[in-house]
């Protein structure tokens, strides 16, 4: 399966297993979503199990809060992460705090799926990576898969989780493990082991990172599309790096991170989001707090520039293999 098929399969499985699961969002019903992630689900499971909503992100998240309080498990799609801001009040003030403020009487067990990230010439409003705007909010879990297998397993875990989950989908790798070499043909998921996805129910637990490549010299923390960019950069530099795919960025798998950095003594953090106050800052702070005496070099951050995502400068903005390689070398050279 490619990533879209895996996500579709996860929702199909959950609609089948749990009558309280329903899916809604802009264009997700009859049409199956602009990225086709919900294709066929309305036809198969019925009109009210997967339907279109008005274009009002705040409205559809607000509706999901009420449904959650009733006892349903809504899975909502925000068409692009760039359009989640109209729902920010409902997410921050309501979804994230409901369990706390009601002392556990009510909760909002919803999954908010939304495609994020660049690399598709989507310009300023189809390319953003807003994950740090959610990791700062107490009460939210934030999940970002990097391949079809994890996408399905993590999405099922998210839907079954009793806490709200912001599920960010790296749209650039929906169809293949894009490694940042935009000048080279994209290899399809079918050639990738993680495209071997069971048809049936299975889960990948939230909160557990995955070591994609173990190494001795340096630790690289990444998630989403950047995981593939990092692997390419590591190959190209020949540096013996340990590459960690965080998968759940909050609550993050701090154990895996700490163990690795204590072993390697060096760390590079990579994300697409703008650098300042990005999630890389939190990772950097966590690492220096826990591994200070093991660090042999400053922790490097490779991130999007602190500008909006400019249409014509896709590849100058996108933190590709060259910038990652540069950071790897810098961190290795430092004494």
């Amino acid at each position, binding site marked *: 399966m490619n990533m879209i098929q895996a996500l579709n399969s996860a929702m199909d499985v959950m609609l089948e297993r749990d009558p309280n699961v329903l899916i809604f969002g802009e264009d997700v019903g009859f049409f199956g979503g602009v990225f086709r992630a919900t294709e066929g689900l309305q036809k198969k499971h019925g009109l009210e199990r997967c339907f279109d909503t008005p274009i009002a992100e*705040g409205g559809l998240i607000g509706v999901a809060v*009420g449904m959650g*309080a009733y006892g349903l498990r809504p899975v909502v799609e925000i068409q692009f992460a760039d359009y989640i801001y109209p729902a920010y009040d*409902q997410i921050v*003030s309501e979804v994230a705090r409901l369990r*706390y*403020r009601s002392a*556990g009487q009510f909760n909002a067990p919803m999954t908010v799926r939304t495609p994020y990230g660049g690399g598709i010439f989507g310009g300023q409003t189809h390319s953003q990576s807003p994950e740090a705007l959610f990791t700062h909010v107490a009460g939210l*879990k934030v999940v970002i898969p990097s391949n079809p297998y994890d996408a399905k397993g993590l999405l099922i875990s998210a839907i079954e989780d009793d806490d709200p989950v912001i599920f960010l989908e790296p749209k650039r790798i929906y169809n293949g493990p894009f490694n940042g070499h935009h000048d080279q043909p994209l290899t399809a998921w079918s050639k990738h082991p993680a495209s071997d996805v069971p048809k049936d129910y299975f889960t990948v637990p939230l909160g557990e990172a995955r070591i994609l490549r173990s190494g001795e010299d340096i630790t690289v923390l990444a998630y989403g599309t950047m995981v593939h960019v990092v692997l390419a950069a590591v190959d190209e530099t020949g540096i013996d790096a340990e590459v960690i795919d965080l998968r759940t960025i909050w609550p993050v798998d701090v*154990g895996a991170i700490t163990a690795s950095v204590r072993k390697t003594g060096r760390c590079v953090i990579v994300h697409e989001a703008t650098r300042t106050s990005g999630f890389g800052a939190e990772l950097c702070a966590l690492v220096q707090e826990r591994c200070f005496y093991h660090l042999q070099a400053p922790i490097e951050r490779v991130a999007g520039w602190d500008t909006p995502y400019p249409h014509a400068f896709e590849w100058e903005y996108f933190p590709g293999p060259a910038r990652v390689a540069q950071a790897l070398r810098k961190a290795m050279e430092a004494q």
Partner: protein
Amino acid sequence: MTPSAKAVRSASSKGRKPLKPNALSLRIPEPKARPGEMLDFGDLHLSEAGAARRPPIDAEPSEIRDLAYDLIRVLDDRGRSVGPWAPGLDAETLRRGLRFMMLTRAYDERMYRAQRQGKTSFYMKCTGEEAVAVAQAMVLDREDMCFPTYRQQGLLIARGYPLVEMMSQVLSNENDPLKGRQLPVLYSSREYGLFSISGNLGTQFIQAVGWAMASAFKHDVKIAAAWIGDGSTAEGDFHHALTFASVYRAPAILSVVNNQWAISSFHGIAGDPETSFASRAIGYGLPALRVDGNDFLAVHAATRWAVDRARANLGATLIEHVTYRAEGHSTSDDPSQYRPAGEAAGWPLGDPIKRLSRHLSEIGEWSDERHAALEKELLEMVRAAGREAESHGTLGAGSRASVSTMFEDVFKEAPWHLREQRQQLGV
């Protein structure tokens, strides 16, 4: 439609250069009266008691738009129940309504004083607005879910929620069901069908529609009821609620409690003073009722109409309750700064408790003696409850939930970072 005199005066003031011919100007609405000025309720569109028609519950919204501008009133000036909306409730029910309203007021008095005595940080009364929450709670089924604002404490009282629990929430003490986490009056009770009250205005309106959609989705028979203030109708979530309610035909009762004020801003800041809040529903194809919010019978009757309609799977109704916030916005507010002192007393729709009491007397089911006795009984009851609640602690004195609970319920299970932080605090 010319801008108010004041606006023009001040627009052309401040020695600006002479205006261009047909220069535009900004209209800033102002209330008819400010402190020191004569009372004026001229922009309040009243109808005679009994005048508004009562359509069948399956009427097309397009056929009843007039009811968004009329005012449904049942009690006339002499306290008689008149017209097609007269709900024909038995005396027993009316006395229960009166009791709940009086208990709500007595409760407010007690908790207001508790705040003044430093026993808590903050309090909000609903004085003058008791009929709205109490009458609506009496029409709704116990299983229906309420999504109120901070000014519908009457819902909990009418549903028999223990006063001691309510007070304990306000006092943030060891008995507070919300473990001291919420600002006073932001109650929550799943058991009593009251959704966790948010400090952020308007959010509950669309959530109620979602709950109602869920009930319909499950082919259940429960409906949702939501309240919002006149000022808060300006928030996007009000629009979201009407949009989703109309599109999915959600079984919800959507109430705008127009108490004329939003802190210091009069209703004309939330929408053109020339129109009604009920009429917002028209553009969504939803039915709307504008009702005398200080008339227990009118609120009861209008709510009955909307509830029957929703249960018949005919969707949501918007009800505007025309009432008046007789006291300050909260214990942090001083209304004498921005509105005439006598405004509450001069309010044309009177006081809901007095009016229902008068009606009961009018039909020979009540007397001043019984009224006084009931007042005394309720005062005692509240006093006793207050003493018990305070015995569980008050804010900053006596006991409260254990500090370690501060780290609970952020997530279903506390992740590593919260366990760590809890240890850092040493609790």
